[in-house]
């Protein structure tokens, strides 16, 4: 079944349907068990519950019995998955085949980290799962049982749930990235696949009603893994795909509305300051962010330390000076450093002790800046980071024309 709305380049996806009689988690865990037992992979990385607690953490495991603790979609996102994977592969290839199961935004962060050379994905099978969102970490910490229950409901209210985190409510990347033209303009670049999405294999849940899960390969690597697992015959995933697009449409509209809302809320110094009034400069947001990888953040470095005289002078100019200094500089500065790669995972907002909506603000800024560069973080491994490349003729609209020369209007219009 092919939809007439799609162009020739993108065919309907195919994959395999896996029955899930004992529930989604069980089905996925068993699949992972199978791949471990058949030595398709040598280790699994999956969120797991710490025994005798309600806490979740990432577990890299070889021992199959540990999979009993695993949960591919826990109610909360604790450490961002891309960050966790980077933590163990930053210094090189693990040289053991690992299947890493994570939320789509975590896969995207992993891909951004690949471009930043902070992760090694050579032997990693990235497996993403349709994600209904995650619950606010604070809620889970205060009442794990109640929050976990509320999370269960998210699986039957895809795209409509209002108890998941605000950034999740407007997330349009909750499934495989939509088929798109790659933004890299150089079509002579050799590509192993026409569209090199982030994950190798994707587990679809939408439309399965909890009775089936859909395994959709996205790369050759993922296809090979799926083939080797020798499951049922291939199926058309058109039904799942159309349902996903439906939800995506709704979410994109919500996202647009949220962008406008947050742009208004942060417009002008007074508004922006008000949003960050409660900030205590703990930098938890920066520590939690998967894209913020600097060993020592610029804003923690000695570069911003000045003599007491200069502080006093500043205070005298204004009548009073807030300490610690440079709160806005930190946030806007951090934006200028990482907004182009922001995957809207919300780890920052979860980590903030003062409940500042930093994830929502950064999501808005991420959207705006990424749109300007026509860049989609974490969806195409071959798409270079916007600040790593340049064209000689672009963004003419921000330049002052040379004397006698006309402003390159046509070029400017192309690039906006």
């Amino acid at each position, binding site marked *: 079944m092919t939809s007439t709305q799609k162009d020739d380049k993108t065919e309907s996806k195919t994959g395999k349907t896996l029955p899930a009689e004992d529930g989604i988690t069980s089905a996925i865990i068993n699949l992972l068990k199978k791949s471990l037992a058949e030595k398709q992979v040598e*280790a699994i*990385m999956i969120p797991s519950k*710490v025994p*005798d*607690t309600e*806490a*979740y953490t*990432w*577990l*890299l*495991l*070889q*021992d199959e*019995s*540990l999979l009993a603790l695993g949960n591919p979609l826990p109610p909360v996102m*604790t*450490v961002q998955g891309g*960050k966790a*994977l980077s*933590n*163990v592969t930053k*210094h*090189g290839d*693990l*040289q*053991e085949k690992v299947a890493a199961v994570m939320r789509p935004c975590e896969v995207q962060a992993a891909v951004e980290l690949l471009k930043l050379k902070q992760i090694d994905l050579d032997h990693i099978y990235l497996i993403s799962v349709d994600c209904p969102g995650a619950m606010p*970490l604070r809620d889970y*910490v205060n009442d794990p049982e109640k929050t976990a229950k509320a999370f269960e409901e998210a699986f039957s209210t895809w795209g409509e749930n209002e108890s998941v985190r605000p950034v999740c409510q407007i997330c349009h990347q909750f499934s495989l990235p939509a088929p798109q033209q790659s933004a890299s303009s150089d079509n002579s670049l050799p590509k192993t696949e026409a569209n090199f999405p982030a994950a190798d294999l994707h587990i679809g849940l939408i439309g399965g009603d909890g009775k089936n899960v859909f395994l959709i390969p996205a790369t050759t690597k993922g296809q090979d893994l799926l083939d080797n697992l020798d499951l049922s015959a291939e199926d058309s995933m058109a039904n799942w795909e159309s349902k996903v697009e439906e939800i995506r449409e709704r979410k994109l509209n919500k996202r647009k509305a949220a962008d406008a809302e947050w742009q208004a809320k942060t417009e002008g110094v007074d508004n922006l300051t008000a949003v960050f*009034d*409660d900030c*205590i400069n*703990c*930098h*938890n947001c920066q*520590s*939690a962010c998967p894209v913020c990888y600097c*060993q*020592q953040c610029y804003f*923690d*470095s000695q570069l911003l*330390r*000045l*003599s*007491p*005289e200069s*502080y*006093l002078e500043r*205070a*005298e100019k204004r*009548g*009073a*000076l*807030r*300490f*610690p200094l440079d709160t806005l500089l930190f946030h806007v500065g951090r934006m200028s450093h990482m907004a182009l790669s922001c995957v809207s995972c919300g780890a920052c907002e*979860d*980590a903030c*002790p*003062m*409940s500042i909506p930093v994830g929502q603000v950064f999501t808005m800024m991420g959207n705006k800046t990424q749109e300007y560069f026509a860049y989609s973080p974490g969806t195409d491994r071959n798409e270079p980071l916007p600040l790593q490349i340049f064209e000689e003729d672009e963004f003419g609209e921000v330049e002052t024309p040379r004397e006698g020369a006309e402003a390159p209007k046509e070029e400017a219009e192309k690039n906006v």
Partner: protein
Amino acid sequence: MSKAVKIQQSTEDGLRSFFESLLQDKTVKGIFTLRKINDEGGVSYSLITDADDLKNAVPLYPQMPVNAGKVLSDFTLLEPIQEPVAAVLRPCELRAFIELVKRHHGNLDNILLISLTCGGVRSLKSLGGKNDLKDLSSYWESVSKSDLAPNNRETCQTCEQFIPQNADMVIATVGQKDMDKECTVFLTSPKGEEYAQAAPGSTVSEEMENEKTQALMDKRSEQKAKLLETFKHNQSGLKALIKTFAPCLGCHGCRQVCPICLCHLCDFDSKTLEYQPVNVRSELNQKGGLKVPPGNIFFHLGRMSHMAVSCVSCGMCSDVCPVNIPVATLFSTVGDTLEKVFEYVPGRSLEEPVPEGTFKEQEFVEIGEQ
């Protein structure tokens, strides 16, 4: 008996008048204290140089958005301040500043140190993301009655060091029944006496430590003993430790806000302690599984071994933790033991050398020789 200056205004107004005269006489260039930043109850430490802005000063506001000792250390890190400045800080913040000065991370020159008998601060968590001005009346009621104020940090409820020792001036709050009519500031150093001449009040003789402060001391000691019992029961042993730190994200926020943790690049953020693929593989093979990121308990125990002896129990660490781990309780308890063992009280004296990096030849002589 101690010398004090009494101003016939409410404590807050009296302080503002005093600060005003200090600024207008140009005795100081600025007042460093808590300041209102909006009408919703938001506060932050600020350096106020314009006397007109003093109406926004809220020196006694029971909140600690950041440890002021850490801020003053950053302020005077590169060199001492050349012009006189008055700073209002809580006893634990003052002790932290002294600890940092001893480690050559800050300078006391030209700073008039004003502290207070401290009723504690509200935990940032209890604010629930909203500052609530209404709460303050119940807070001040408890303080005047020498009671444990509601919603305080746990470290505040068990703090026996709420009477500062190294300040130039000490604002009386604990047990004070007439804070809406009177402002009493004890003058606890010659510098304090000198600066007090600018205060619009009369000098009196009073006891800074009295039966009211003792009443609070007793309650705090009782609470501390209770906490220690609970700690021994719930947080002692390997299993309990693993449970306590199970939710830890490794964000290192506790370290970031800690006034004593001063390293520009913490060991635990450095390349030395990052896992190489061979380390990951070997642990994976050894145990069958590896928690990622690894080394949370190592981080906490390691941090304890580096700084717990100077822990001033301010409680910033617990407040900043996104997953409500009682970091302050653990570090404070371990810190207490270490302080007893080394006979050291952080911030007690500038002359007292920091235990790490110093030693006595004749101490622990039985160790190593069995």
